[in-house]
């Protein structure tokens, strides 16, 4: 999708990824942000609530909360309430360890929240190997509680070499629990970079996943798989990098970035402590450069109209430049698998 309305520039993102804290009670091997200990200077409650108001004024439709583990932040419910009071829809990515029935009942009252519980394997052995001891059972318990609530719930799985073969079975598990499955792309960011070579899916695994995805219309892939998306899923609008155009990311300390996978100093568009959100969105030269970004090296490719060069974040992490074309795109996977 090359959308002339998006190309003209929207007055605000459609949704924002907000990593509210770096604090996490797990140490997942593929964590994009190396979460564990809270960042030194995370936004205060007052700053966070002011940011919610700024998002509301700008017209942001949805905030996707991640981290770290969002529920580790003591004022997280207050931030959520502020969003819901303003009609902003929210989605929370959580490891599920801190969810219990009373909390789910409280969350369900807003009717504006969706929850993704991370689960990276179809059984205890495979999930715990990536996320830590006991995480499978804990996530399963959280999903079970959520499935009995009105909250739209999904299992969120990061596709890795270790679990690629389990994805169809995870899909069945999600169905049996009455929730959906969302598969996210593994990127060499944070601790994911340290474990990249071991956990990186092979080209064959990515091709097999792409084929399976084409046949599994109810599986969500969210942000990440447009470069792998086959023709059958084009109608789902998964073929465009929305960074700085439809979406953006704010980190725990109020820094704004194009997306959650590019939270490096090189990609800092501005800080909430120095500028308003609207100023950053409208005036940041970095965001402007992402809106102008064209992957010329991919323009001759037969799939260019479908993926527009793929994920700039993966290109940057693997090739050192955002305009280098996605090294794990469908075309490259075919070439690498044949080689």
């Amino acid at each position, binding site marked *: 999708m090359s959308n002339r*309305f998006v190309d003209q520039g929207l*007055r605000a993102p*459609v*949704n924002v990824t907000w990593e509210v804290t770096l604090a996490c009670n797990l140490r997942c091997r593929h964590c994009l942000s190396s979460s564990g200990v809270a960042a030194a200077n995370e936004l205060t409650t007052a700053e966070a609530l002011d940011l919610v108001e700024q998002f509301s004024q700008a017209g942001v*439709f949805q905030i996707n909360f991640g981290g770290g583990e969002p529920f580790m932040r003591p004022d997280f419910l207050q931030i959520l309430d502020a969003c819901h009071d303003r009609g902003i*829809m929210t989605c929370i990515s959580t490891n599920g360890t801190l969810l219990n029935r009373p909390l789910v009942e409280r969350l369900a009252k807003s009717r504006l929240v969706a929850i993704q519980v991370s689960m990276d394997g179809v059984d205890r052995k495979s999930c715990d190997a990536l996320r830590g001891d006991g995480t499978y059972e804990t996530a399963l318990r959280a999903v079970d509680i959520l499935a009995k609530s009105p909250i739209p719930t999904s299992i969120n799985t990061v596709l890795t070499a270790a679990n690629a073969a389990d994805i169809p079975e995870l899909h069945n598990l999600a169905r049996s629990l009455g929730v959906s499955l969302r598969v996210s792309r593994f990127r060499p960011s944070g601790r994911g970079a340290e474990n990249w070579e071991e956990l990186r899916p092979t080209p064959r695994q990515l091709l097999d996943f792409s084929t399976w995805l084409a046949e599994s219309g109810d599986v969500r892939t969210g942000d990440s798989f447009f470069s792998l998306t086959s023709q059958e899923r084009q109608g789902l609008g998964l073929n465009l990098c929305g960074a700085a155009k439809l979406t953006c990311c704010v980190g725990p300390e109020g820094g704004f970035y194009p997306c959650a996978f590019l939270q490096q100093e090189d990609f800092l568009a501005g800080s909430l402590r120095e500028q308003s959100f609207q100023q950053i969105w409208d005036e940041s030269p970095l965001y402007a450069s992402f809106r102008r970004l064209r992957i010329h090296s991919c323009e001759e490719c037969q799939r260019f109209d479908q993926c527009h060069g793929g994920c700039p974040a993966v290109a940057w992490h693997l090739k050192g430049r955002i305009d280098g074309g996605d090294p794990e795109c469908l075309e490259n996977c075919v070439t690498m698998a044949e080689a």
Partner: protein
Amino acid sequence: MNEPKVSLQRACRVRKERFGLLFYDSRGPRLLFAETGDLLEPGFFTGEVSVDETMDRLTEAEQRKVTGLLSNLVKKGFIREQQIC
């Protein structure tokens, strides 16, 4: 003339953009870009602006455009069934 009923689905939102209106459906998520210029305000879909009064001030051609948009929004699940005229 009955009061037209225009109501966004619970999972949907709308806002003003330079080209007109941008609709968002969190269930997809999906977007719909409506090139309406200044014809309609988001409040038309949220009950803050009178549908009757808005329709009355439009030309016939504009009314047809709005009616077409409403039909499309119903078909695509952004708004609930409504009655115009």
